């Protein structure tokens, strides 16, 4: 008995027609994003300038932040072998926020780069703390893991609030917490391009992350340096989360819902899934941002609010589904 053409060939079919359709759909959404807003970019003289100063940066930021958070969630889920983790359910975002706050207190005039670096370092430390904790207690029960993560995040968040209260920074913290694309303008968002590098790095080492997702023993069996991959993954997640946190703020649940939806339809081969995870991340962020921009026009609702509502619904649906499957 011989097998004919392999039914599943992970490579070589990255650019399938469905994916092209997906790209097209996202492009249409981005088009909407470019032309949605209070300012009349066609009727006024400085319309073109405004278009370049706010609309284009905002749309690019949506693409980068959406893709980065979705991919961070995916990598995190593989590394912890748990479907319910992502940077906002493991405390990573809160740690990045604490880092940001620390910089603001020590040096309110700190450059964007300095803020970002500290946020990344804090996010890295926080994620490592979470991973080490998981390893130590070897919690495999899927729900305990995000609960522990959310608790850790809550503790760090409370600590941040306390410091902010003491130093009169509560308002800054509040603004940060409500992740929003409103303030994205030319000259303020360019560092987000760093996450594009992270995306490329994740794509290159995709197979290692998938192998690590099979657990330490299977990974070691096939000769993978498990600890090294964990460190690399944590580093990439920290960079993505740190950068997005500093520039945009908190984008809850994105890393949770996107990988789960993609996995439901396509399984978990990381490399062939990555383009889909990016696309869906961008699409959801853009849709949420569009909703936020239009429901109380001419004002805006922070995108994190819309994401939070959507994320909670998907999270609960996943829980119920999981229970049904046993």
């Amino acid at each position, binding site marked *: 008995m011989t*097998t004919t053409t392999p*039914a*599943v060939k992970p490579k070589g079919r990255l650019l399938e027609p469905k994916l092209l359709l997906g790209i097209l759909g996202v492009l249409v959404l981005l088009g909407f994003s470019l032309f949605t807003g209070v300012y009349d970019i066609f009727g006024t003289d400085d319309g073109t300038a405004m278009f370049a100063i706010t609309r284009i940066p905002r749309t690019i930021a949506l693409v980068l932040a959406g893709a980065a958070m979705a991919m961070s969630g995916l990598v995190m889920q593989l590394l912890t072998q748990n479907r319910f983790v992502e940077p906002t359910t493991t405390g990573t975002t809160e740690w990045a926020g604490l880092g940001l706050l620390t910089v603001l207190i020590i040096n309110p005039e700190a450059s964007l780069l300095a803020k970002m670096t500290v946020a990344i370092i804090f996010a890295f430390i926080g994620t490592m703390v979470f991973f080490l904790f998981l390893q130590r207690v070897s919690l495999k029960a*899927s729900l305990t893991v995000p609960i522990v993560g959310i608790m850790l995040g809550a503790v760090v968040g409370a600590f941040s609030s306390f410091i902010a209260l003491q130093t009169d920074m509560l308002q800054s913290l509040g603004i940060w917490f409500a992740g929003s694309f409103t303030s994205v303008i030319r000259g303020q968002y360019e560092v987000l391009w760093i996450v594009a590098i992270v995306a490329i790095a994740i794509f290159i080492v995709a*197979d290692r992350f998938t192998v690590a997702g099979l657990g330490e023993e299977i990974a070691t069996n*096939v000769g993978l340096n498990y600890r090294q991959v964990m460190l690399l993954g944590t580093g990439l997640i920290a960079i993505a989360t740190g950068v997005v946190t500093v520039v945009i703020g908190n984008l809850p649940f994105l890393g949770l819902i996107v990988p789960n939806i993609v996995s439901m339809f396509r399984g978990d081969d990381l490399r062939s899934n990555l383009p889909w995870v990016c696309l869906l991340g961008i699409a959801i962020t853009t849709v949420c941002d569009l909703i936020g921009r239009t429901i109380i026009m001419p004002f805006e609702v922070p995108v994190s609010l819309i994401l939070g509502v959507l994320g909670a619904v998907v999270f609960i649906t996943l829980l119920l589904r999981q229970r049904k499957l046993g």
Partner: protein
Amino acid sequence: MITLTEVHKKYSSEVTIGPVTLEIPTGGITALVGPNGAGKSTMLTMVGRLLGIDSGTIEVAGYDVTSTASKDLAKIVSILRQENHFVTRLTVRQLVAFGRFPHSKGRLTTTDEEIISRSIDFLDLAELEGRYLDQLSGGQRQRAYVAMVLAQDTETVLLDEPLNNLDMKHSVLMMQHLKRAAQELNRTIVIVLHDINFAGHYSDYICAMKHGKVVQFGTPERIMNDEILSEVFETPVQVIDGPNGPLAVYY
């Protein structure tokens, strides 16, 4: 050939393995048997370098498992643990393909694809290769894991209780697959088995362990013996002549 020399491991305050000095010959199936807590799985895990040793040396095909780079060892010895359940949704073929990771680091060549197909065929999984692991029965999933370690194409294959959770029919099928792998693919297979009669029938050598030490090593003909088995398992065992060789009766 697997050589253990004065291997010692303090697993926990109560459980100590060794000192174990043992030579497992090349080729065929060697079954590790013994009562619960004898240290069978622990020893297998140490040979597969998933668990460190306190002292002594373990060599597989001449390579010291503690000093050889993990990625090189992955081409010499493969190990499958008992508990394998992960949240990753992979198809059978994708899982088996990861067995080729030590050779191709994820970028599969046509040779890799051929070996993957062969492993899948070898365990009769061709019809299931596009299915997701969570859609399979326990026996099918176990076969997929074994196909993965076979695709790794290592001379030595270590399996920790591959019959766990399998019913009678699938246990027999699994042992037949392993026997064929040992013979046709020239593998040295070491397995932890709970059922002494499976060990007696399908293995070429039996290694009996008790209290962290190897107490008996030999061919099934020699080990399938009233006295030896009663001593090893600490319960009265009677070996009778069955239609297909000796049978241990212990109830």
